[in-house]
């Protein structure tokens, strides 16, 4: 390998480098322009340009630089354009990136918050809880002030919504971790005949081999080639297994998968994986050492240095102190020497130690345990590993600490469909890790039904010094600025459980979620307790997600069902204002709902009522079903007649209403409210399948099989006479509340019934849906000279209110029993049984329930807002307004609402409190109808 140094901190080409020197990129950081290469991370490009500080710490605003050079690096979170909290030590550089530090004021270089360091003794754990508890009235002010100190970036309110994708994956084996063991496991599983998903957090497979020496790179090339030849292995890099749930339901978040859809780059993709087996080959995470000054820029983990040098060809410093307790630290020192960095090795295996680091925006001096001071600009620590066990914890395991190897290991409490591979299980050479991974992969495949299990070769537990904290205090949680001193203080305050200390100090609760901190936190708690066995302390519980996931990824694509009637194109062409009604888009009005009302009352109008629920009922026992579901009687409904019915739930609460018509001897059509269609279908099937499977009834939902339109107004008969054939529309031949099958505008198979929700002569026509637009247009063509115009939902609501027809769920609620909704006229308690009867019998014997009544404001110009309360005195609520409108027909305001029974007598004046607290009198009227109470207009 070359040892030449190029300009700045960029090295000559390195054997394993991932940058493309032929592809330079320009980007901006903190207002200045920098360059890097394709393959650089934001941080590697900045380090190569001499930048040391990328953020300020959470509480003390201390300058922070590279620590681990991974996704989890707590000091390298930045803002990229509108995107906050970007992991700059992981995110690959892109041309034109606008990168800035987060939450610094006035600048990254000089942050006034750093004054907090002077107040550190007052900002210990629990500071917030103790200081801001009283007085309670200042909590909102505290919230405002403390909110300014919250970590994280900003999102502009008008930021473009990223494109987030979702995908379901079913595989035999999912391998979490693409290091040597993970790759070997994937290959072995594939060779057993299993389908495999191989997930790795980095942009390329290989784990630590990528930044290793020649032998590592050779092994890596071989493993990658083996993976590549197996089509049954899907490799997913820059992705993380974020959670393992029961039955190996596994969440994988794939970042920037490099796919564009309709011009939008997919930002993240949440993959929901169902795997037969899960191989956990997540490897080890190098842990920091706790000592004074351990968070200074220039203090790095050995793996961070090796990543910068070998992957990105970046020289991380000029004079290094390498504090090493293992071979990886030794290899790091070797790498540094190779690129010309002066190295002073402090070997922990000879009981040497470091005491503190000193410096400002970069480490300058290291004080060793023996008192010597060494000047340097880079302090490397290699003091051991944290086993990446979260997925094992999620699978039921509780890893145990082994003091000899100075790390946690899995136990045999794992679920059978979860297999451990590689360094999590022990130490070994590359070939030993590969062999272990291969056995794990074969076993995982076997447990998913492919091939046979292979016993895993034992991996040694190589002795390692227990190095967690020096003789000085330093940072334990770099994300939350929690020090070892804070943890000792917490112990002194009585927080003796690691879980309580976690919550009190917030240690391990930051964005890195304990990956760098948990082992040190346990060790320091053990030290504070004076115990040597970490298992007595235990660990905090690892829960999903393993890595932070954006809310966008969790929300995913917005696949929300939207339903349209066949006449929607016509509505759009005629400027209908869309109304979102559940899943449906309906015309609210076409410009002037009051005019639409007037036209219907005067002439004829047509409304699209396709969303009305429609059930096709067939069989000799349909009357039994109708008698069961409706509160009124159905045994004698003649063929050709329709009847209004109300359904109550078993608690007697009004559930739905509609009309049902009898088309033939054993053939009925039931309509429901638009929102109740699915509920009523389920209700019918529930009764038929569980209580009355012996009844001969077939129920088929046909809601959208028909386009439905209501032709209403005194001229509706004349209009229909022009397009309907096969039916005598005369009043005596086709009277009110009857149904006929007909041909409408040359479309056979239509049925029409004469009903009157608007209070006018009207016909509801149901047309085979594909011809809905044809019939709709034909009606308007035919009625042009009659002044036919469309009317929308708002006009319909006004007219039904004028007529006093209530709407379920608008004029009723979850407590409205049948009699309360003025339905006594149709509730037939003399029927043998029906849904809700016992409750309605009980209600009929009481007189204490509120009544639905018609009301009119004494001042006819005032329209009380719906849900306005009916009140007595200053505190007593005695009712509410459920519907209110200005009636174009009557020229005054009208209402429906509930009042206590003593106030329900016609003529009673009640008091309504408006939202602006004004009180206005309303007069209770006779019945519910404000207009045509006898229904004469419907029967002409």
């Amino acid at each position, binding site marked *: 390998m070359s040892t030449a140094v190029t300009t700045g901190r960029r090295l000559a080409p390195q054997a394993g480098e991932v940058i493309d020197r032929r592809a330079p990129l320009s980007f901006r950081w903190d207002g200045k322009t920098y360059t890097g290469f394709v393959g650089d991370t934001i941080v590697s490009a900045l380090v190569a340009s001499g930048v040391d500080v990328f953020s300020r710490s959470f509480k003390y605003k201390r300058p922070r630089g590279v620590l681990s050079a991974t996704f989890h690096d707590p000091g390298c979170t930045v803002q990229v354009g509108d995107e906050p909290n970007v992991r700059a030590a992981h995110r690959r550089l892109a041309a034109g990136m606008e990168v800035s530090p987060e939450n610094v004021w006035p600048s990254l270089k000089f942050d006034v918050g750093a004054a907090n360091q002077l107040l550190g003794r007052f900002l210990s754990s629990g500071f917030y809880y103790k200081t801001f508890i009283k007085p309670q009235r200042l909590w909102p002010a505290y919230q405002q002030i403390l909110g300014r100190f919250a970590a994280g970036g900003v999102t502009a309110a008008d930021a473009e919504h990223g494109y987030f994708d979702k995908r379901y994956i079913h595989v035999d084996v999912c391998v979490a971790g693409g290091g040597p063991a993970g790759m070997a496991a994937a290959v072995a599983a594939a060779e057993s005949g299993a389908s495999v998903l191989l997930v790795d957090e980095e942009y390329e497979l290989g784990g630590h081999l990528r930044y290793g020496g020649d032998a590592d790179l050779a092994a890596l090339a071989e493993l990658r080639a083996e993976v590549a030849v197996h089509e049954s292995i899907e490799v997913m890099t820059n992705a993380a297994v974020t959670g393992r749930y029961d039955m190996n339901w596994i969440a994988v978040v794939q970042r920037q998968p490099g796919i564009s859809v309709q011009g939008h780059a997919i930002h993240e993709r949440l993959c929901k994986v169902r795997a037969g087996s899960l191989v956990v080959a997540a490897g080890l995470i190098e842990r920091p050492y706790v000592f004074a000054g351990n968070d200074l820029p220039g203090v790095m983990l050995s793996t961070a240095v090796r990543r910068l040098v070998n992957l990105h060809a970046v020289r991380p410093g000029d004079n290094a102190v390498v504090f090493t307790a293992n071979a990886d630290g030794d290899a790091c020192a070797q790498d540094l020497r190779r690129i010309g960095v002066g190295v002073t090795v402090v070997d922990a295996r000879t009981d040497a130690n470091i005491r503190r680091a000193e410096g400002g925006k970069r480490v300058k001096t290291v004080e060793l345990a023996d008192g010597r001071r060494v000047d340097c600009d880079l302090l490397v620590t290699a003091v051991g590993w944290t086993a990446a066990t979260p997925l094992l914890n999620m699978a039921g395991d509780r890893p145990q600490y082994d003091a000899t190897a100075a790390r946690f290991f899995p136990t045999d409490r794992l679920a059978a469909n979860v297999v451990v591979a590689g360094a999590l299980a022990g130490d070994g050479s590359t070939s030993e890790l590969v062999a272990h991974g291969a056995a794990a992969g074969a076993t995982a495949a076997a447990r998913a039904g492919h091939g046979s299990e292979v016993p895993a070769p034992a991996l040694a537990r190589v002795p390692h010094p227990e190095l967690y904290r020096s003789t000085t205090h330093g940072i334990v949680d770099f994300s939350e600025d929690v020090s070892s001193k804070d943890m000792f203080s917490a112990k002194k305050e009585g927080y003796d459980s690691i879980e309580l200390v976690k919550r009190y100090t917030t240690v391990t609760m930051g964005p890195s979620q304990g990956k760098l901190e948990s082992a040190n936190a346990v060790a320091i708690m053990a030290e504070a307790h004076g115990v040597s066995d970490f298992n007595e302390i235990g660990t905090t519980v690892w829960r999903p997600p393993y890595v932070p996931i954006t809310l966008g990824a969790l929300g995913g694509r917005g696949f929300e069902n939207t339903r349209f009637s066949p006449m929607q194109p016509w509505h759009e062409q005629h400027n209908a204002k869309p109304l979102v009604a559940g899943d449906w888009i309906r015309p609210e009005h076409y410009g002037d709902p009051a005019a639409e009302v007037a036209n219907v009352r005067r002439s004829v109008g047509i409304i699209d009522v396709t969303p009305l629920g429609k059930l096709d009922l067939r069989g000799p026992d349909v009357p039994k079903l109708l008698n069961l579901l409706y509160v009124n009687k159905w045994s004698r409904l003649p063929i050709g007649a329709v009847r209004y019915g109300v359904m109550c739930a078993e608690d007697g609460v009004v559930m739905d209403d509609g009309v049902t018509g009898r088309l033939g001897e054993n053939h009925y059509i039931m309509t429901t409210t638009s929102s109740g269609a699915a509920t009523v279908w389920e209700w019918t099937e529930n009764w038929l399948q569980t209580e009355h499977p012996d009844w*001969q009834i077939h129920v088929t939902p046909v*809601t959208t*099989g028909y386009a439905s339109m209501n032709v209403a107004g005194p001229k509706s008969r004349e209009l229909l006479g022009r397009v309907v054939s096969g039916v005598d529309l005369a009043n005596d031949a086709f009277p009110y509340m009857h149904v006929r099958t007909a041909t409408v505008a040359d479309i056979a198979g239509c049925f029409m019934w004469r009903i009157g929700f608007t209070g006018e002569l009207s016909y509801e026509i149901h047309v085979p849906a*594909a011809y809905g637009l044809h019939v709709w247009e034909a009606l308007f063509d035919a009625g042009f000279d009659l002044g036919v115009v469309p009317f929308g939902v708002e006009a319909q609501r006004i007219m039904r209110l004028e007529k006093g027809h209530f709407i379920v769920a608008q004029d009723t609620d979850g407590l409205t029993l049948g009699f309360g909704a003025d339905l006594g006229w149709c509730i037939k308690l003399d029927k043998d049984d029906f849904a809700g009867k016992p409750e309605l019998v009980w209600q009929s014997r009481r007189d204490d329930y509120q009544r639905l009544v018609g009301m009119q404001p004494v001042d006819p110009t005032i329209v009380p807002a719906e849900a306005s309360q009916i009140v007595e005195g200053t505190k007593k609520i005695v009712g509410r307004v459920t519907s209110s409108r200005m009636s174009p027909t009557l020229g005054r305001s009208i209402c429906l609402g509930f009042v206590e029974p003593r106030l329900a007598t016609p003529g009673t004046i009640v008091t309504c409190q408006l939202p602006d607290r004004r009180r206005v009198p309303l007069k209770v009227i006779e019945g519910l109808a404000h207009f045509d109470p006898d229904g004469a207009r419907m029967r002409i």
Partner: protein
Amino acid sequence: MSGPPIAPIPVARSPIVATPPVEVVAGWEVSTHRSTAALRVSDLTWLCKVAVKADANGAFTARHPTTFGSARRLPGDLIEIGSDPGGWLTIGPVGDAAALVERLTDEVADAGEMVSVIDLTHGRALLRLTGPDSVGALAKLCAIDLADAVTPNLAAFRSSVGSLVTDVVRDDLVDGTLSYLLHCERSSGQHLFSCLVDAGAEYGIDIAGPPI
């Protein structure tokens, strides 16, 4: 009748906006766009669809052994789907609904069994997704395992597709090309279609008119 003339030619329309060029064929407004893309979605709503309900252990069932969760190809370009226990949906050529209803009704007319035969042509939107990447596209919308071992050719199931209750039938083409029929409530047809186009964009999906 009197007054202005009504629209002279009834045209049936799918709930899915037809991709130009558009023609009226067999009384239906359909796209005649053709595509050779590897992944294609076609609106087949115009095909007739007839639902049957009968006793799961009765005479009709004996004559129609298509079990719940499977489908069967029948002469006359019909596909019979076991959609429920004691429930079937038969898909056939455009315009054949009335004849199919009559034939199915007559089959067991003398058996004394209650059988309901209902023309649902107008009540259901029907789509066909075709191509090797169909699984990839569907996997973005549907949680069901689409592997051969779980959902082989002529498997039928009901699931959420794009957050919509959808009936899915794997119905590979004669040459073995992977293909799925998807049908849902007519009013949600455009939603399902849009979901498939969205999900298939990653694979270069194209829209193709129905075979004519």
